[in-house]
């Protein structure tokens, strides 16, 4: 019995459900593992090659585990004008990671998103459910320390 049975049962067992199933698996397991991708292929009757193609096409999916706290930096136009790329660089520097990596303690990963739609708060970032706005670079440490403690 597939470990993904609860998720697969919530969707019609056809190729049309592929993206929705992968979204649920991503939400549940924090990433799409090789095992899970193979389960999805079998469960939906979709060739693994196609599952992999879809899983790597869309930004929402990650084939590597993300940090416990995923910091989503808004790279939208308004935020860009107000220093989003600076913010992005500073976050990587503070957490001491390169693009796409997870911090050594597994606590943080950073990803750019295209527009959170909070343009009046530029530059903005989201950690979990909380959106932070008007971020000043010298306040980044304070924000992140809240999650470190």
């Amino acid at each position, binding site marked *: 019995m597939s470990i993904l049975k609860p998720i697969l049962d919530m969707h019609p067992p*056809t*190729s*049309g*459900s*592929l*993206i*929705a199933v*992968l*979204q649920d698996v991503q939400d549940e397991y924090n990433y799409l593992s090789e095992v899970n991708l193979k389960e999805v292929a079998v469960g939906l009757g*979709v060739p693994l090659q*196609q599952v992999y*193609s*879809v899983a790597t*096409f*869309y*930004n*929402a*999916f990650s084939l590597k585990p993300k940090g416990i706290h995923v910091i989503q930096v808004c*790279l*939208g*136009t*308004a*935020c*860009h*004008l107000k*220093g989003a790329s*600076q913010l992005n*660089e*500073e976050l990587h*520097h*503070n957490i001491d990671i390169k693009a796409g990596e997870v911090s050594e303690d597994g606590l943080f990963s950073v990803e750019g*998103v*295209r*527009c*959170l*739609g*909070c*343009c*009046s*708060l*530029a530059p*903005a970032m*989201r950690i979990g459910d*909380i*959106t*932070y*706005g008007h971020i*000043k*670079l*010298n306040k980044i440490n304070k924000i992140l320390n809240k999650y470190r403690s």
Partner: protein
Amino acid sequence: MNKEILDGLKQEGLKAIYPKGTKISVQMGTCGRASGADEIYRMLEKELKDSSIILKKTGCLGLCEREPMLNVFIPGQNPVVYVDLKPKIVAELLPFWKKGETPEKNSLMQLNGKEFQTNKKGLKNAPGIKKYNEIPFYKNQQKIVLGNCGFIDPDNIAEYVARGGFSVLYDILTNKKPEDVIDTVDSSGLRGRGGGGFPAGKKWRTCRNVPAKTRYVICNADEGDPGAYMDRTIIEGDPFRVLEGMIIGAYAVGSSNGYIYVRAEYPQAVETLKRSINILRENSLLGKHIFGSDFSFDIQINKGGGAFVCGESTALMASIEGKVGEPRTKHIHTVVSGLHDCPTVLNNVETWGNVPAIFSMGVNNYTKMGTKGSKGTKVFSVVGNVMNNGLVEVPMGMSLNEIVNDVAGGVPEGKKLKAVQTGGPSGGCIPVALMDTPVDFDELTKLGSMMGSGGLIVMDENSCMVEVARYFLSFLVEESCGKCTPCREGNYQLLKILERLTKGEARSDDMETLEELCHTIQNASLCALGKSAPSPVLSTIKYFRKEYEEHIHDKKCNAGVCKALFEYEISTENCTGCKLCLKNCPYEAITGKKDEVHIIHKDKCTKCGICFDVCTFDAVMKV
């Protein structure tokens, strides 16, 4: 659901909007919550636990710059809107609200216009509070699609019905044939609000005329343009409007299956839609035999996977089919063969939102708004270097000047306006000299830009237009699906050239190569994403050629943006030796003793700009 029940809901809704007791509704759109509305709502929940004051949530009134905001409804009086709120301020004001008073402190305006009356005549003016039509941000707006946002409870169908909701659908299902509906939408001149500007009526008619057993209607809520959040606000503030529009459209074209494709980055909008669809199903406004007619229709929500290209209609449909979001050639239109190879009508959120209004206002009144070629209103998100970042709805034909300066308050901090970008990554930059251009589909296209979905980015004198072009191109390179050569390879190479320009490494033939490349990408790309990718480059070259030449020949960025083309230095005249920059530098690139002029060590400086931001003596300079 029938007329009687609808009338009952209307009465219920009227009482909910203007209850007998005091009501406070907190604006809880995503932007409001990001500004702190969550905290304020929780605080009020606690404080009002044993009170008779009703606490509600509402959507966004559009003035995002001043959020968190809330509305106080004292019975018999116009609702009063409070802004710039913090828990401390709410704590101060709450006792007054409890007493039925609306003090001036932190108030912005009262909602006095007839658009807020909703059958409630004789509401008194709130003393000492400015009026809605006196506020520059609001007085020249014309809220049709945004009419309920920030005013009603988006989860309460009764309030939507009280504001006229579903009476149009009832009338249509009872008295009108599908062809009549299409005729009306046709006469209204409604053009797609997602960016394409295609006449909606024509689209619907073509779809209906394709002989088929199954047809689909889709709502494109993918809203990928960075800086645009109109659709999210409409869904979070007035979801039933969009759904009613879709149901009307489905009836008109002969569809019983609809989809809403929402981008994954909008979790609140997704949840709002899930609730609204369930409510409609419970009230037999979705599902079988709507209003007891022969017409059945239901809607499924599909979340996007984080791909801008899925805003393109064929890529969106591929995504709904569980495939990668690769567009296909469109010589066979999706309206003839779209989702699952069936005739499909795909329209944007705002387009669907206009549909009920066209019928409730009547075509004559609707067409009075706007220009000859662009009827109705348009919702814009005005963001960037502007005083009042926010969402506005104005009649088509209003000039960019009016929108940016009169409505949105102009450029702050005494800086000069330089350009306005419309149409997102597919659009172009319009220089300040052309600000009198009216917003109109064709006028904007003539200038080398486009209406787009409504993102309006305001740029001041400190914006580098070469960097702006590079930014949009880097976005498109990341979002390209990779199927066709001109977009996949061409945009990448275009980006490489622009990167060289921003680093002062331009080659002598770069401008020529750039223009040739743009020409091929525009003409030979497979889909609209590719074809329009060169627009930001071409429009900035057209209007700001001098800047390109300065970057290429002089290796200078006069806006002080391209990091490779300037350095930070500390002015010996202005520096007071306060050590503030030193303490804040994350790279330990500044040295200096107290009360002595500090020095930035260029080998360590990454030009992050923190010192520039924190210095209160203007001692950090870009040279």
